Structures are given as structure tokens and as C-alpha cells.
């Protein structure tokens, strides 16, 4: 009786351990990349400001928390759009495409959402819904263009997306100046209160955290389901693995390319609308590309190109961005975060090789151990 119980406990412990070990193995590339990124950032901080580097690192790692519930809300507020661009990048990656045009899709969608939010008069509960929906549609259209060009004229989607980033940025600035310009701030006008996404005031105090985070998680779960369980998801993945083979199997490869980019653009568009349907968040009229679009690349890679992974990666990115914001108190420009993120992306791109390197090291050590013990054994004899 006693023994059996013991055994049950042991197997449960074993199971838990095994799950944790598996999880660790899955997460290993991301963890290595984050570690390398942080180490690199720390070295840069040491070079420029040796005294402040350590406190700076502490602020970076803890800055997000400890400052109360408002900060937690802000992290979620900023996480929602980049989770969505991350999920969008995942959708494209799975079909073998690289949607580097998220920046353009986002600004076009953001403009449409703002346009509706500022100029249209719609009764309260529907105003933000319409803005959100039309923003999504705008993103879908902007995303579909490189898809259509790729499918029908074999235009490299990376290059056409980059061109569309600039076209979208200039177009948005032009439209802001023409329709919703606030001369005093050189930005877009504030949206009407009815167009703002419902806030989670009860949970996060005076933070502007809103339902965007739930929408982002829902979309991630939906995409997980699409890829795991539906024919559409299977076809998209198949044409990502091998376009010729999927065509031979009777799938419409062209349709899949267009569809993938369209869905990807729509999700980015949703993220753009969520980003700008917040009073006080306005589109500027400088010609800089929207950085949140590029965050999607980091989020998707760090999330192991899985929709659910993107949720965690996006939250993490938002968390260290917040830490980077507070690091300015320690005398560090917040661009240190972007440096760290760039190193993380770079390390992820070579993470397969790094893992191989560690595995080789391990086998070499084991072989060395084995050979020395053999020798020792020989001497004993």
C-alpha cells in the first residue's frame, strides 16, 4: 500500500519533470537568444557607462514591475499590437513568406481607424467596432498587394513589401495632413471618446490598458486552431514546405499565397487599429516607418514561429521596452533595448547552429571522458 502510493508520487514527479524538461528543450533557442541579447546589451552598457551598467541592467529586468498596477496595465496595452504583428508574421512564415511590410500595413490601418474615429459619428458601442473592422480591412488590402504580385508576377514579396512600407507611410502622412491634422502637435487629431476601445479601468487603475490584449490573445488562439485543425491551415503550411508538391497535390498555390498575405495583413491591420484607438495615441507626420511593424519579426522569431509563442514573446518585448523606458533615469538612451532586440533576432537566426555547436561540444566531452576512462582502465589492468 505504502509502496504503491510512493510509486504514484514518483511517477507524477517524473511526469512533471519530463514536461518541464520538454518545455525547456522547446524554449531553449529563445532562452539562449534572450541571454545572448542581454549579455551583449550589458557589455555595451559597460563600455559607455561602466558605473551605471549594473543598476541599469537591474532596472531593465525589473523596471516593468514593482512600480504598481498601472505599469502592468501599460505593458499589456503596448503588448497587444506587437503580439498581433507577431502572429501575422507567424502566419506568413508558415506559408514560406516573409511579411516585412507590417510597418506599412499597420500605418495604413491605423490611419483608417483614426479617420473613422475622428470624422465619423456613429453611436457609442458601434463606433470603435466599425473603426476596428475597417482598420483590419485596410491592413488586409495592403497585405494582399504583395501576395497578389508574388502569386501572379513572381515579384519578390520582401522587396514589394518594403516599397509598400514607404508608400503607406507617405500616404498616411498625406491623408493625415489632408483630413485629420492637428497643427499644434503636428500629429493626427484625437479620436472621439466613443471610438476608443473599452478600457480595463477596474483592473489597472489609471492605465489606458484596454480590451486589445484579449483580442490579441483570441486571434493567436484562433490562428493556432486554424493551423492545427483546419484544411486551410494545412494547405497554407503545405505550400510553405514545398510549393511544387502542394500544387501537385491539387492545392491552389497562388490562392494560398494571396490568402496568407491577406490574413497576415488583416491581423497587422487589427493590431494597428488597436494601437491607435486609444485617446492620446496619435499618428505623427514625420516620415519614419512605424517601428511596431518591425517588432513583429522579433516577436514571431522569439515565439518560435508559433501563434501562442507570439503572445508570450510580445508580452516579454513590451516588458523590457517598459524597463528600457525607466532606464533613462540611469542615464541610458532607451535605444539600448532596440540594440538588444536586434541581437536577439540575429542570435535566433543562427540558433540552430548554436544548438548544434553545444551538442557537438557535449558529445566531444563525452567521447573524451570515455576515451580517458578507457585509458585509465587499461592502466589498472
Amino acid at each position, binding site marked *: 500500500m505504502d509502496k504503491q502510493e510512493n510509486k504514484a508520487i514518483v511517477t507524477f514527479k517524473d511526469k512533471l519533470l519530463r514536461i518541464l524538461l520538454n518545455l525547456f528543450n522547446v524554449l531553449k533557442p529563445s532562452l539562449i537568444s534572450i541571454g545572448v541579447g542581454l549579455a551583449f546589451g550589458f557589455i555595451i552598457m559597460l563600455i559607455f557607462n561602466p558605473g551605471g551598467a549594473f543598476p541599469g541592467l537591474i532596472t531593465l529586468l525589473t523596471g516593468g514591475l514593482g512600480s504598481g498596477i498601472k505599469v502592468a496595465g501599460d505593458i499589456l496595452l503596448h503588448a497587444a499590437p506587437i503580439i498581433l504583428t507577431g502572429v501575422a508574421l507567424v502566419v506568413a512564415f508558415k506559408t514560406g513568406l516573409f511579411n516585412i511590410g507590417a510597418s506599412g500595413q499597420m500605418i495604413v490601418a491605423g490611419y483608417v481607424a483614426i479617420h473613422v474615429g475622428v470624422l465619423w459619428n456613429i453611436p457609442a458601442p458601434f463606433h470603435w467596432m466599425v473603426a476596428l473592422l475597417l482598420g483590419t480591412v485596410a491592413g488586409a488590402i495592403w497585405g494582399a498587394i504583395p501576395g497578389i504580385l508574388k502569386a501572379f508576377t513572381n515579384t519578390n514579396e520582401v522587396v514589394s513589401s518594403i516599397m*509598400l512600407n514607404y508608400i503607406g507611410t507617405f500616404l498616411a502622412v498625406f491623408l493625415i495632413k489632408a483630413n485629420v491634422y492637428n497643427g499644434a502637435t503636428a500629429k493626427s487629431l484625437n479620436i472621439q471618446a466613443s471610438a476608443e476601445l473599452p478600457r480595463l479601468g477596474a483592473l489597472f487603475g489609471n492605465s489606458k490598458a484596454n480590451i486589445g490584449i484579449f483580442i490579441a490573445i483570441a486571434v493567436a488562439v484562433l490562428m493556432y486552431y486554424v493551423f492545427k485543425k483546419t484544411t486551410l491551415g494545412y494547405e497554407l503550411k503545405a505550400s510553405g514546405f514545398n510549393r511544387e508538391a502542394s500544387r501537385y497535390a491539387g492545392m491552389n498555390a497562388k490562392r494560398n499565397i494571396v490568402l496568407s498575405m491577406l490574413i497576415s495583413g488583416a491581423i497587422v491591420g487589427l493590431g494597428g487599429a488597436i494601437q491607435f484607438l486609444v485617446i492620446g495615441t496619435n499618428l505623427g507626420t514625420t516620415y519614419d516607418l512605424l517601428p511596431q511593424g518591425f517588432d513583429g519579426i522579433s516577436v514571431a522569431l522569439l515565439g518560435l514561429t508559433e501563434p501562442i509563442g507570439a503572445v508570450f514573446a510580445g508580452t516579454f518585448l513590451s516588458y523590457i521596452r517598459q524597463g528600457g523606458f525607466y532606464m533613462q533615469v540611469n542615464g541610458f538612451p532607451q*535605444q539600448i533595448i532596440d540594440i538588444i532586440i536586434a541581437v536577439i533576432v540575429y542570435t535566433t537566426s543562427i540558433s540552430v547552429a548554436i544548438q548544434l555547436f553545444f551538442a557537438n561540444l557535449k558529445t566531444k566531452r563525452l567521447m573524451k571522458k570515455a576515451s580517458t576512462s578507457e585509458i585509465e582502465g587499461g592502466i589498472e589492468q
Partner: protein
Amino acid sequence: MTLIVQLTLVSLVPLLIVALGGLMSEKSGVTNIALEGLMLLGAFVGVWVIRDLQNATNPLPMQLIYLIGIIVGGLVGGLFAMTHAIASIKFNADQTISATAINLFAPAFAIYTARSLQGAQQIRFSAAFRIDKVPFLGDIPIIGEWFFQKTYISLFIAAGILAFVWILLYKTKSGLRIRAVGENPQAADAQGINIYKIRYLSVFASGILAGIGGVIFVVTTSASFDATVAGMGFLAIAVLIFGNWHPGRILLSAIVFGFFRTIASAYSAIGFLRDLDLDTEIYQMIPFVITLIVLAITSRNSRAPKAIGQIYEMGKR
């Protein structure tokens, strides 16, 4: 007319040099969309050096300072290109992603370093590098006016680079090897060519040219560097593709793009365009819209190197 030609030359020089840089890398089979970031890093350090040399107590002659800046910028570009080379050649990384990492890194690094070291993000310098008139050659009618008056030494550097790349790729054994590696690495390997060495050198050269182009772009178009090269690196990729991976056609496409960029940035100085009374943004959009349309039309018969973007593993067939 003379004004448009002169302005177009200023725009096309960095585009041409950077696009030729892209050509070097892509001919050996490595895609390089990091050109934008490499330009920016080259420009950052090159302009910094130029500013410091200008502020020295006994400054060197202006043109010499410009040359030193260009060389430093080139070396910086080449150095950072090696990170892309190592990732994509040695570690089998996805080339688009490792290049994207450089593009993300460059502006962040420039802003962080500038703010840390000088407290501000902008690097101001004195933009006094224009040559009013080249002696003797400037007196030739029309040609002298177009090419040898109100010009920069960078124009002649670009001409030299164009000739060098063209001869290297099409008239030398090394060039043949580079092209072989980009078209069919397996066959090249069988011939005893060291694929890795060729690719490393090609990507390094590509970074040098991108860095040079970055310095030239900033120095000839403004009086301060503000952590951006305004998408010129991406435009250079379009020039490369539109030029169908051939130096001569790249020159032609750089002329076309340089012309459109001139219109975008200097339309107010050109009478009939100013009278059209369109918004700045429309003019700025034009080069990118045209690129998109041209790409859509020409991509079907693209002559991109066959092994581009592919990881080369020895022994794989």
C-alpha cells in the same frame, strides 16, 4: 536642365555604389537586404570622423577629409557585413532574417552611441565638399557643365567603382568564380573553388560599397546625420533588381531612380513641377510606386543568380 542633371547625379551616385555592392554579394549567392543598415553604420562612423577632422585645430584639405571619411565608412560597412556573412555562410541562417537584424541594429546603435557620447543624436558637419569647377575639363561645353561643374569627387569615385566591378565580374577569373558560385555552387565546388572564401569576400566587398555609399549620400545631401539614410539602401535593392543583376543596366536604372528622387526632393526648384502644386508626400511616394510597378512587370523574366538565398552545404546535391 543643367540643374536637373547635376541634382540627378548627386542622387544616383550613392544609389549606384550601393546597388553595385548588392550586386557583389548577390552574384555570389548571398542576398543582402542589410544594405540599408550597412549604409547607415558606414555613414554614422564616416560622418563622425569627418566632423572631428573638420574641428581639428589644423584641419586637412577638405577633399582629403572627404576621402578619409569615405574610406572609414567603407571599412565600417565591410566589418558589419561580416556578421551577415558569418550568419548566412557559416551558420546557415535565414539570410533575410540575419540581414533584418542588421537593419534593426543600425539606427538603434547610431542613436544610442551618439546620445551617449555627445548628448545629442544629430552629427553636424560642414558640407563644403562641392567642387565649383574642375579646371580645364569644366570648360568643355555641355559635358563640362553637367559633369565637371558643381560636382563632387564622389561622382568620379562612383565611375571608378562601376568600371572596377564590371571588369572584375566579367573580365577576370575571380569574377567568373564569383558568378559560378552564385549560379551553381555544386559545380563550382567540383572545380575546386572555395565557395566559402568567395562568398565571404563578396559580402565583405558588398559591405564596403554600402558603407561608402552611406557616407556619400549623407555628405552630399545634407549638413547633418540623424541616424537615417532615408530608405536609400532599400531603393538600391530595387535598383539592383530593376538592373537585372548586370552593372550596365544597374547604371541605367540608377539614372532613372536618381531622376525620380531628384524630382521628389527638389520639385520646388523645377518650374513646371512646382506649378502642378501636388503635396510633398506625393512626390516622395513616386520613386517607390514606380519601383513597385516596374518590379511587377519585370519580375517574370528576372535573371537573379540561381543559388541566391540558398544555404550551401558541402556534399549536398
